[in-house]
């Protein structure tokens, strides 16, 4: 589903560049804007994910390797 955007302020030079690109690539402005927003959002999400993982505090849980026995054999 798509939403009609009523008014968005865009820098003139960007708007003109978009028009030029649309003509060059034979794509509508809607198509170009959707592609650009998709890429922008995906990049933002990716960066946030990396940041989140890097900030995750490390744990100290011993050097013993993890085996399936440790997970599935009931020792409780």
């Amino acid at each position, binding site marked *: 589903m798509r939403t009609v955007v009523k008014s968005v302020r865009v820098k003139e030079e960007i708007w003109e560049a978009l028009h030029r690109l649309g003509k060059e690539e034979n794509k509508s402005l809607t198509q170009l804007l959707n592609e650009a927003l998709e890429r922008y959002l995906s990049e933002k999400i990716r960066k946030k994910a*990396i940041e*989140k*993982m890097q900030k995750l505090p490390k*744990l100290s*849980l011993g050097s013993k390797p*993890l085996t*399936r*026995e440790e997970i599935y054999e009931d020792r409780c």
Partner: protein
Amino acid sequence: MKIGVDTNVLFYFLNKDSPFHEDARKNLILLIEKQTAVITQQNIIELTVVLTRRGVSIEITKKYLQNFIEVMPVLKPTSDTIKIFLEQLNKKPVKGIKLFDLYLASTLLSNGVNMLYTYNKKDFIGIENLRIWEPA
């Protein structure tokens, strides 16, 4: 191409005492960056078991799980998972707790994922159509 991430990778990613820690950290971040890493519901449960068994509280464990869930898609078993599991079982007759690895592989395969990043390559050898990535 999506790559399944085994529970041991998630565990070594968190556990700074492990000799695989730095390697897991480097590789997993790279896979997340490329948006190719996926995990399964089974991995989440397995990680919960091991973290709590090694003394991490449920509350802290939940926070770590939440982080992983937010940065990697979590695959669910599909209607084909059990079919693939039974087919694989005919080709690789395993018993007991080894069946859980077969089910994990079946979940990945039924979701179109045919590569697994693990530090326990031997557990998955012989599973048809599943390629294993175990960094040297």
